[in-house]
Each structure stands twice: as C-alpha cells, then as structure tokens.
C-alpha cells in the first residue's frame, strides 16, 4: 500500500511540474562537444535561462526536495507553459530568447589574467540566442543556442530529434587562450616555421648588446591560440532496445606559444652558448570519431564501441636563428659557425580502439559484466635530418684530435637509418566485474582488470653516410664548444669509441593487473560501512623495476544519524613495493651496448646514483583521509564541510621523498524561495613536496671512482646533496546573491583567489650548488622569493523587464589582481642577458580592469 502511494505520488508530482517546456540539458552517449557551454560573460552557461521559476518546483508542495545526502536541489529554471504556434494551426510550438548588447572595457584590459580565456572586445556582443521548437503530438523537437563575445570566443549548438527515437546534435565553438599578453619576440616570422633575425642582427655574429638594442625596441605582442571545435552526432533507437550512435568532432588549434631554442649552456659558459625563448606555431587538427551499438535489455546489456582519434600537425618543424657566436673552450680557432637551430614538432598520429562490453543481471540484485578492448596508436611521419647547419661543425684541435663533423653528412634525410618513424603502440584490456546484494543490508563486488601496453617502436640512430651512431647534440652547438661532445658514437674512431650516447628508442610499455573486492554493509538504518581491498600488479618494461605491487585498503563510513545531516568518513591506506631496483635499466639502448664500444680505463661515468628512486616506481606508503558533512539548516539552507589530508612517504634518499596535501572547503547555500538564493564558500588547500638530489662532483668525472653510483662515493659525495621543500597554499572564497524583485532581478557575485608558493632549500656544502653559484654561497640563503597570485572579481547585474517580452540587462564586472614570480625578476630591465634571450615579460604585477555591458533581452 505504502509503495503504491509513493508511486502514485511520484506520478502526480511529475504531472504537476510547473514547466512543461524543458530548457535543461540532458546527457546521452552520442553527445559531441563540451558538456558545459559558457564564456567569460556567462561562465556557467545559459544563465539568462537559469532564473528559477517563481512558481517553484511543484504545485503539490512548497520548497525543494533534498538529495539522499541532504543537499537541496536547485529550483527549476523558468519556462513558458506553452510556446507560440509556429504558424496558424501548426502542431509545432516555439519559444526563444535573445540577449544582444554592447560591452565596453576600461582599465588594464590587456592584463593576462583578465583575458586569459576571454575574448573580450569592445562592441556588440551576443549574450545568448536560444530557440526551441517542438511538436507535442509527435515528440519531435529542434533547439538552437548560441553566444558570441568575439570571433575567437563564441559557441553555437543545434539539437534536433524525436523523444524516444532519434537525436542529432551539431556544434561549433571557438575558445581563446592567451598564453601571454606581454611578449616581445625578437624574431621575424612569428607564427611561421621559420624564425629569422631582424636587421641589423647577424646570425652567429651579434653581441648581446646589439641583440638587446633590437629586442628592447620590439613591439609588445600577445602570444596565444584559439581552439575551434565543431562536431556532429546522430543516435537512433532503431530496433526495440537497440541503439546505434555515431559522432565526429574536429578540433583545430591555431596560434602560437612560447618555446625554446637551445644552443648549449650559457650560465656556466659566459659569452658563449645560447638559451633562446622562441615562439612556435600551433597548427593542430584533432579529429575524434566514435560509433557503436548498444542493447539495454532487462537481463542482458551489450555495447560495441569504436573510437578513433587522428592528430595532424600542419607545421612539422621550427627553424630559428641564433644571433650569438659560439666559442670553443680549448681556445683553438673556431672552425664552426653554428647558428641554425631546428625543432621537430609533434608528428601526425592515429589512435584506434575497439571495445566490447557484455553485462548480465543476476539474482540477488546482482550484475556480471565483461569488457574487452584492443587499441593501437601509430605514427609514421617522415623523419627530419638531425641538423640544418651547413659547412663544418665541431672543433679542430689537431689532425689527431679532429672533433669536427661535416654538416652535409647530417643535414640530409640520407643520414637517417629509416625515413619514417614507424612507431606503434598496441594496447589490450580485459575487465570482469561482479556485484551481488544477497540482502538489502549487504552488497559484495569483485573485479579483475588486465591491461597491456605493447610498444613496438624500434628506432636505431645510425647514420649510413658516416657509419656513426647517435644524434648531433643541440644543433651541433655542444660539439662546437666542448671538444668531442658532438653526440655520436663511432666504433672505428678512437675519439668516439668510448662516447656514451643513446642510440635506440626505448619502447616503454607495461602490463598491469588489478584485483579488487569489497563489501557494503548497512549496519543500521542510518549507518553504512564499506571496505574495499585492491591489489595492483604492474610489470613495466625497460624501467628501474620489473615488478611493482601496490595493495590498497579503503574504509568508508556513512552516518545519517547526526540530526538531519550526513557524515561520510573515508580512510585509505596503500603500500607499494616491488622487485629489485636497477638505477640504470637503459644501458641496452645506449652506445655501451653496441659492438666496438671501448670502456675507458676509468670506466664509464655512472648514469646516476643508485640511491635515486623514481616516484612512480619506488616504495611508498600512502594515507588518505577524507571527511564530508552535509547538514540541512531548516528547509531552505544547507551547510557543507569537506576536510581532507593525504600523506605519501617515499623510501628515497634521492628523489621525491614526501608529499602532503590537506585542505578544507566550507559552503553555505540558502534558497528561501524561488525568488531568492544566496551562497557563500570558503576554501583552503595546502600542499608540499620534499625532494632531494645530489650534484655530480665534476672533479671526479675524470678520476678513479667515476663509475661508482653510490651516494657518498667519489662521484656523488654526501657533501653535494641538497634538499628542497616546495610549498603551496591556496585560498578561495566566494559569495553569490540573487533576488527576483518582480520587474527587476538582481545578481551579485564576488570571488577571491589567492595562491602563495614558496621553495625552501638546504644544501650540505657549496658543492651542491651550480658551479656559477658556488662563489656566491654566502648570498644563496635558504629560500627563493615567494611567488603569489591574487585576484578579486566582482560582478553586479540587473535584469529589468519592460514588458513580458522585452527587457534589459545592465551589468558591471570589475577585476583586480596582483602577481609576483621570481622567474621573471630582472626582465623588466632587459630581455637579453648575456647569451640568453627572453620573450615573455610575464603577467602584470598589478592590474585593475572593468567591463560594463548593456544588453537587450527579448523573449521570442
């Protein structure tokens, strides 16, 4: 009887919803594009349509219902009970909304943080255009929504279909991303693949003063990109429980971003080398395809899905010129003039994945599911020659110490062992899960998942023209400054027969198996207990460990007996260990594994210290604690509190040693009626990372014991060890308020964000410092200057209704912020420091910007 009553009420409540024309979004498997649409003007998306209906949620009762955990559902958005007929006697009815107006900016409108993801422009802006038409008799519908701030910041979405039958969705979207608004790139050709020096600078022949004179006169530029996304999907319930779907999404990213340009070290080699902050083009296209079949029966469920992703980079390389001359450190006449640099940019690649899932409902309210997938990732772009230099590179000391190389032997694709990459990684996955509920108070689940990533890439860096192995380092600059450090191994030449360099691609891969099981036990009406155990067995290939095991246990307790509140406590403990740790598993891919390699009398310099433990493989103990309290205050308010703490301890003398994360979030939500709502939130997050490393003893690299990897040995003395503590604390707060006065609706929001970063360090002796800093050890201190990021944003808006159809929105957005980062310290005075060229001055230290808008609201 009671069940029947509840059922009846549910149906009655459904029938009594005040709005019959839905503006709300719904999810489906064939969705294309973004789940959330929005822009800087309307970050949450569809805000003009989201004002709560003053009639409330239901004609049956006042107020709002709560979720099972006690959170109030928001009031439904306002909607018309019925739209206007499309034409006389038409079964189709429509309704719509248009918000169009003018936006004007003032203050520091070029500030990076003000427009990082916002295409603000003075002028006409389309806040929202929404049009919905449906046919209640047939269940067919068409819906369009769009917004436009500028040509780089806009979105449009079209949906159509028939309820319970088919649906079509198409979208187009532009999203801006300004990387920096304070850039002064030196080169000509920004945005292209060829950066050339402006006159009067001479490639490889200009002094820092000459470069600075040109660089400091360059105009300020914005470096950024735009993501253009478009997609189309179709889903059809074509036969009984069977649904087919297909979707395609294309994303094109165009623009540029800050990049590098190495010409070997400059810090330790004054008036030599080169470190250049260049600008690279962005011209990517990614096309994602998804199609499949789904059968959702009452007992059996089946899904077959194919996903493909196709990345295309329309700019294959970046060529740049360095203005600085290189000088060899041995003082012989410089025979090389290396100033040409080249980057190989991201290659085109394809991804395919085929996945099948089968599920069956079991007795005891249970389910068994089995999934299998196979995938492959491939790229086979033509390979670029190792260098673009011409003439001679390297250093000529004497006929018996001739460390030169002929650029012509390396600047051609004939210098490659293969013409295309022929890279391939295959993946396989099997996943089985079972869930049973033998009683309403008890549930049990178990799962077994197996996954393999098989890397079939096998590239050998061998030059058939010279018979040498390896790759010319840093465009040939390194070998033109330091004798012999060209980057190549040659078993026939004593000068290079002991040179250690990587000669093969390392085909990283792994096989991972995870077993998990757990029970859910409802101890009493208001208390639920959950325990889960998992065992993860990872077998990486060509890594420091061949076996890594991690066991994890998670305990959860949910209590609903605290008045009307819900308290959830989670504790998680994980322990990771594994097989023996090999500090140098990469030797097979280095020249030392090739025939003809001559081990020097003093041995090879140790690859790294054997005390190093990489954080993804090393032993680790992890504790996680998470508490959530949701407490209703009367019928109209809710207080939520979340506190969490995570601690990871790594058994590593060298490497990552510990991380800590802790924080809290408090929020208060109040919706006394559909006309008024208010919320406030406060949060704090604190994280730290302890890290230790040891500097090489440069004096030991040419002495006995250089092959000793032990910490405390000649190459890695304890005196050279250092430790850093990276600490970050973030605060955020917010307040929102909105009220419907009738003809006037007001909304107010304030957000506050503050981030503080600090890096402390300790070192055992000056030997732990970079060589350039060792003479200044007394001024090194024990911390970098603090970094901070501070933003206040205030928004106030009024919607004024002149009639049922016509209204106006007036709003103001004010933002102020400050920023400090020691990485940019000193660049205000000069973007060129010795042989280092910087492009980005960094975000403005202080800014204030204001934006006002007047929009016309029209109901259609």
């Amino acid at each position, binding site marked *: *009887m*009671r069940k*029947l*009553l*509840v*059922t*009846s*009420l549910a*149906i*009655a409540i*459904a*029938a*009594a919803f*005040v709005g019959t024309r839905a503006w709300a979004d719904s999810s489906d498997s064939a969705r294309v594009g973004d789940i959330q649409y929005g822009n800087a003007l309307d970050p949450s998306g569809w805000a003009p349509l989201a004002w709560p209906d003053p009639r*409330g949620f239901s*004609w*049956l*009762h*006042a*107020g*709002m*219902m*709560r979720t099972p955990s006690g959170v109030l559902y928001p009031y439904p958005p306002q909607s018309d009970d019925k739209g206007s007929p499309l034409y006389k006697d038409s079964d189709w009815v429509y309704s719509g909304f248009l918000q169009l107006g003018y936006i004007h900016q003032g203050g520091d409108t070029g500030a990076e943080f003000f427009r990082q993801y916002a295409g603000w422009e003075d002028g006409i802006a389309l806040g929202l255009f929404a049009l919905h038409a449906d046919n209640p008799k047939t269940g067919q519908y068409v819906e369009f929504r769009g917004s436009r701030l500028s040509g780089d910041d806009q979105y449009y979405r079209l949906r159509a279909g028939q309820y319970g039958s088919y649906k079509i969705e198409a979208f187009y979207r532009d999203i801006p991303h300004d990387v920096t608004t304070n850039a002064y790139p030196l080169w000509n050709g920004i945005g292209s693949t060829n950066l050339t020096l402006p006159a009067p600078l001479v490639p490889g022949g200009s002094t820092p003063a000459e470069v600075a004179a040109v660089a400091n006169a360059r105009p300020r530029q914005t470096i950024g990109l735009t993501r253009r996304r478009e997609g189309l999907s179709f889903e059809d319930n074509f036969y009984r429980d069977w649904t087919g779907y297909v979707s395609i999404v294309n994303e094109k990213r165009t623009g540029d971003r800050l990049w590098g340009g190495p010409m070997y070290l400059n810090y330790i080699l004054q008036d030599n080398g080169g470190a250049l902050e260049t600008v690279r083009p962005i011209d990517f296209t990614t096309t994602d395809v998804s199609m499949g079949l789904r059968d959702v029966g009452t007992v059996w469920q089946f899904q077959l899905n194919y996903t493909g992703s196709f990345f295309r980079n329309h700019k294959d390389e970046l060529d740049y010129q360095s203005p600085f001359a290189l000088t060899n450190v041995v003082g012989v006449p410089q025979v090389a003039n290396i100033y040409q640099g080249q980057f190989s940019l991201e290659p085109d690649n394809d991804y395919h994945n085929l996945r099948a899932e089968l599920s069956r409902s079991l007795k005891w309210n249970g389910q068994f599911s089995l999934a299998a997938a196979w995938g492959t990732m491939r790229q086979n772009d033509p390979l670029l020659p190792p260098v673009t230099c011409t003439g001679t590179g390297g250093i000529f000391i004497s006929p018996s110490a001739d460390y030169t190389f002929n650029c012509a032997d390396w600047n051609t694709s004939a210098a490659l062992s293969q013409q295309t990459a022929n890279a391939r990684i295959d993946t396989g996955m099997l996943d089985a899960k079972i869930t049973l509920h033998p009683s309403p108070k008890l549930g049990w689940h178990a799962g077994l998942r197996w996954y393999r990533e098989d890397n079939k890439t096998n590239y050998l860096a061998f030059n058939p023209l010279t018979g040498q192995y390896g790759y010319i380092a840093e465009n040939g600059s390194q070998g033109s400054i330091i004798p012999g450090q060209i980057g190549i191994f040659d078993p026939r030449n004593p000068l290079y027969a002991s040179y250690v360099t990587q000669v093969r691609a390392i085909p990283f891969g792994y096989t991972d198996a995870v077993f998990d099981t757990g029970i859910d036990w409802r101890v009493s009406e208001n208390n639920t207990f959950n325990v889960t155990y998992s065992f993860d067995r990872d077998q990486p290939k060509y890594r420091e460990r061949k076996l890594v095991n991690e066991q994890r246990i998670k305990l959860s307790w949910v209590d609903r007996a605290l008045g*009307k509140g819900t308290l959830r406590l989670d504790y998680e403990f994980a322990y990771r260990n594994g097989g023996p740790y090999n500090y140098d598993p990469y030797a097979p891919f280095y020249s030392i594994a090739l025939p003809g390699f001559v081990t020097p009398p003093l041995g090879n310099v140790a690859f790294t210290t054997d005390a190093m433990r990489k954080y993804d493989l090393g032993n680790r103990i992890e504790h996680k604690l998470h508490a959530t309290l949701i407490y209703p205050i009367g*019928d109209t308010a809710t207080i939520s509190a979340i506190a969490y703490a995570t601690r990871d301890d790594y058994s590593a003398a060298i490497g990552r040693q510990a991380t800590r994360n802790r924080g809290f979030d408090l929020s208060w939500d109040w919706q006394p009626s559909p006309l008024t709502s208010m919320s406030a939130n406060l949060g704090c997050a604190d994280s730290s990372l302890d890290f230790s490393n040891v500097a090489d003893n440069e004096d030991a690299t040419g002495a006995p014991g250089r092959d000793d990897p032990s910490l405390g040995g000649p190459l890695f003395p304890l005196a050279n060890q250092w430790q850093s503590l990276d600490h970050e604390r973030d605060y955020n707060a917010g307040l929102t308020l909105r009220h419907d006065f009738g003809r006037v609706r007001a909304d107010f929001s304030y957000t506050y964000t503050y981030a503080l970063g600090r890096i402390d360090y300790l070192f055992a002796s000056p030997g732990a410092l970079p060589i350039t800093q060792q003479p200044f050890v007394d001024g090194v201190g024990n911390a970098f200057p603090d970094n901070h990021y501070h933003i206040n944003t205030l928004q106030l808006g009024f919607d004024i209704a002149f009639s049922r159809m016509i209204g106006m929105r007036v709003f103001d957005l004010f933002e102020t912020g400050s920023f400090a980062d020691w990485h940019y310290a000193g660049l205000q005075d000069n973007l060129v420091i010795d042989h280092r060229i910087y492009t980005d001055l960094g975000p403005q230290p202080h800014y204030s910007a204001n934006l006002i808008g007047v929009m016309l609201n029209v109901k259609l």
Partner: protein
Amino acid sequence: MTFTTRVALVASIALPAMAIGVALAAMPRFDDLRKQAPIRGDAAAGAGKAALCAACHGSDGIAVAPTFPNLAGQSATYLYVQLRAFKDGARDNAVMQPLAKTLTDQDMRNLAAHFASLPGKSAPQKAHEASRGAIVFHDGDAAKGVPPCQGCHGVDGRGPHPDPTSTAPQPAWSTFPRLAGQNAPYVLEQLQVYHDGTRVGASNDKVMQGVARNLSAADMHALADYVSGLMGSDCPCK
C-alpha cells in the same frame, strides 16, 4: 502652495495609485495553497451560520440535488479554502461568490468546521472494483499520462493518508478533498472544468489540470460513477 498645485500633487499620487489598484483588482486571484496549514473553527458557531447553505447542500451537509456537492464529512481546510476562493474571486461561481462575500474569515472557518464534523454520505450502492473508474482511480493510466487518483485522495477516497515518517517536502494534505460518496454529476462537472482548463485559481487546480487534461469523456464519467459509490462514512479528513 496654491490650491491648483495641491490638486495636481494629490492627483499625481492618487491617479497612478488608482490605476495600480484597478489593475490589481482586475488581475485574477490565485490561491497558492502549498503552504496552507490545517484550519480550526468553531463547529457550533458554524452551525448557526449554515441555514443559508442548507438550501442547496442540505441541513445535514448532504446536497439536495446531485449537481451540488455534499459537504458533510469533507476536509475542513478544503471547505475553508474553497469558501475563501469564492470570496476572493479565485474560484468562479455565480451563486457562491456573492454568498461568500458576506462571510468573515472566522465565519468561513466555523462553517468549514461545522460541515466537516457531520457524518459523510453513505453510498447507495457499492462501487464496482472492476470498473474502468476503479482502475483509473487506483492505477491511473500511464499510457495516457494519468496518475492514479488515490495518490492524493486516498485509496478509499476518504482523503489522503500521508506517511508521517517521510522527510520529503509534504503537500498541504488538508487541502485535498475527500471524494468518497460525492455526487457523480458534481464530480463530473469538476473534472470537465479541470480538463478544459477553466478552473485555474489555485495551485491545487494546477495539479488537477495536469491530471484531467488527458482524461477522456468516458473516463471522467467512469471516475465520477466510481467515487460516488465509495463508502463515505467515518472520514478521517476532518
């Protein structure tokens, strides 16, 4: 200040106020019953005011003609909000509106308490539980989007049976009428006005619009016949 100025000042304030008043007066009244609390009244005092009501609804609350509703045993709060709706113009009826305008709020509470205290009508014949009306009343018609009537009017038609342990927002149960033993012609007429969307003055009317708009004429007849046959005594909805 001259006389002319005074007149102009008064007029400039009074005329817009009058215009707003006229506009408000012209607006149809709407009774939002979702926060309506159960009412109390003096049944004895109400009995003293019920003489005029008896002309149609009978001295014992049993209507003299089946086109009029029986009031005996009806929910007091339901009766009160209906009288208030007639008085305020939220519910349209040429006979009841002028009568209700003469009543004070306390009169309406007392009258409601009086009729609620009277025993309900005993059905002349037992309702047929296999009829179409019984099916719609108890199970609704999901295919047509018709919820079962018993969800709000009770499985026996004697008014709702709320779950006292529920923590969900509750309807104003006391504003839902009992239907058991109600006169079939009257029930049919009300279903028809809900179906046609002409009784819209209260939030409960919105609920009934959603229910009745998908009812066929035959179903409305069947429902009216069925509820009139439900036993009306011992109503728990007073």
